[in-house]
């Protein structure tokens, strides 16, 4: 459903096992049929719907024409023009949503990176209670997103939520800040998502730290390096690859995050929190302008191809299988 980190290297087939005897129906033949159910499902449940989505984006399709959608009128690129200029009647245009989505995913990624890295550094060396801290760090990350959204909806509840109360108590903000409406909703969404997702960077960095040999630290100690020098001269350069991958995946994941704003704000969402997936959902399933939703989807897909392509390049599949 969502982008998740997946193995970087694919093992090449280990010394291929061939049927020992020449008989074509030997019991040890290749059971290639084991792949067919997977392929069939991927084609039917993801592949074909993907093509239908592209097709729908060129149609004038609403709840009346949906029943016989194959006969719906072809309108060319007009859905795309509407998506980019006007959007749906209650929401933002795809361009505005795109801005919100980009701002949201990049800003969240930017915020979680130092937090996750710092957290990984706090549990890098053993001490009493470290296991407990490691488990604790993971809790926000493993709470289902719809529950995270409900928790932060309560935190940001106007006038009565913990955030408004605390900020008013220390005279930083008005008790009626309206976090779930208007411009503040963007920040509410960023804060909630930062809370929920920094452990992703933490996990990646922690694993990355383990691959740095202790000789390098010892050499640095010998040279009298301080913490900051160790961090900037040894740790960060070696984590470059891991962090790059983590940032890429994180941006992709946040860009496609539908559940958090959907459950946190309900529909229609405030314009400032009207991320692209939510805009597509509202256009399609609440305003029944399926063609418009389709056009916005295709625009999203085209944008996703850029980080997707970068991701595939970092996996270096060819290199491994060439051996």
């Amino acid at each position, binding site marked *: 459903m969502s982008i998740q980190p997946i193995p970087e290297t694919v093992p090449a087939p280990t010394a291929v096992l061939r049927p020992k005897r020449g008989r074509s129906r030997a019991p040890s033949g290749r059971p290639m049929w084991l792949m067919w159910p997977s392929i069939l499902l991927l084609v039917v449940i993801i592949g074909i719907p993907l093509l239908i989505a592209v097709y729908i984006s060129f149609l004038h399709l609403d709840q009346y024409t949906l029943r016989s959608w194959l006969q719906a009128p072809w309108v060319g690129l007009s859905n795309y023009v509407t998506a980019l200029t006007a959007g749906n009647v209650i929401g933002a245009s795809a361009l505005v949503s795109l801005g919100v989505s980009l701002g949201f995913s990049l800003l969240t990624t930017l915020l979680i990176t130092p937090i996750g890295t710092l957290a990984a550094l706090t549990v890098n060396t053993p001490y009493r209670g470290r296991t407990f801290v490691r488990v604790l760090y993971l809790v926000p990350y493993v709470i289902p997103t719809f529950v995270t959204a409900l928790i932060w909806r309560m935190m940001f509840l106007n006038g009565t939520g913990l955030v408004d109360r605390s900020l008013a108590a220390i005279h930083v903000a008005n008790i009626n800040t309206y976090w779930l409406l208007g411009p503040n909703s963007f920040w509410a969404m960023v804060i909630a998502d930062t809370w929920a997702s920094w452990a992703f960077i933490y996990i990646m960095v922690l694993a990355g730290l383990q*691959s740095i040999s202790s000789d390098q630290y010892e050499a640095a100690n010998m040279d009298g390096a301080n913490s900051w020098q160790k961090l900037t001269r040894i740790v960060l350069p070696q984590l470059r690859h891991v962090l790059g991958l983590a940032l890429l995946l994180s941006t992709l994941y946040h860009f496609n995050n539908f559940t958090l704003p959907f459950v946190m704000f309900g529909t229609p969402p405030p314009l400032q929190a009207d991320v692209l997936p939510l805009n597509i959902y509202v256009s399609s399933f609440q305003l029944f302008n399926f063609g418009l939703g389709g056009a916005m989807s295709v625009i999203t897909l085209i944008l996703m191809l850029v980080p997707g392509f970068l991701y595939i390049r970092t996996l270096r599949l060819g290199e491994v299988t060439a051996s």
Partner: protein
Amino acid sequence: MRRHRDAQEILPPPVRIVATAVLAVLVLIPIAYTLLLSVTPDTQIGTGGLIPSQWAFGNYLSMWSTVNLAQGLGNSLIIAGFASVIAVILAVGAAYIITRFKFRGRLPYLYSLIGLQTVPSVMLLLPLFVLFASAQAAIHLRIVGTYPAVTITYLTFALPFATWLLVSYLGSIPVDLEEAALTDGATRLQTLWLIIVPLALPGLVVALVFAFLTGWNDVLFASVLTSPETRTVAVQLQAFSSSQEGGALPLYGQLMGASVVTALPVVILYMVFQRYLVGGLTAGGVKG
């Protein structure tokens, strides 16, 4: 007496302790607030102090009748359970073929698994609905709103990640063991079941948990593809939350209680398998 400092220690201990404390507090505040609200009487939420004058543990009882929570949890369990088990079985089969044989289409298949993961899921919702609706008109059998419809959807979405994960696990199992079994006359399926599956068990657990969570955590597809009888707990809570707006007295205590009950199994699942799961998450990302 000074302990010998670990060479890998990057943060000086005082910095480490302060940072850990700050992070722990930030993690715990929203969770503690949720637990507190779940036992606060609805009349006292937002009035007076944070600590209610009396505890409302009854929220944890009344919520079961306010929403049909038991049905939602049961549906989530059935749907996510079946989806994850089938997804892992199919993924093992595919991963076995990918790691043991060279064939045309092997790399394109692996690439397409990644490609499919970048497809925004909201894009597939309508076409999938249209596809199911068309199929249901063709075969005169209800599909939308049934368990199989949403199960098959989650199972397919879980496949790419599960397959990737198992490809890396199965690839690290040496073939010598299989060769011995094969020369003894075992069939491929017997080898897979008796030799590979037991050895890849940690990988299977990770794949199973992540596939399960794909279904358990989803709101998007369940909101359109389920009917009131097959509705998952995720959709129930979302609907419960949005129905509290504008009402006379929002039942926030019960909402938070239900959230706690829904999140708890997942948090426990993670804690039990923590060691495997963190490894599974980073199986790639990082050089082994």
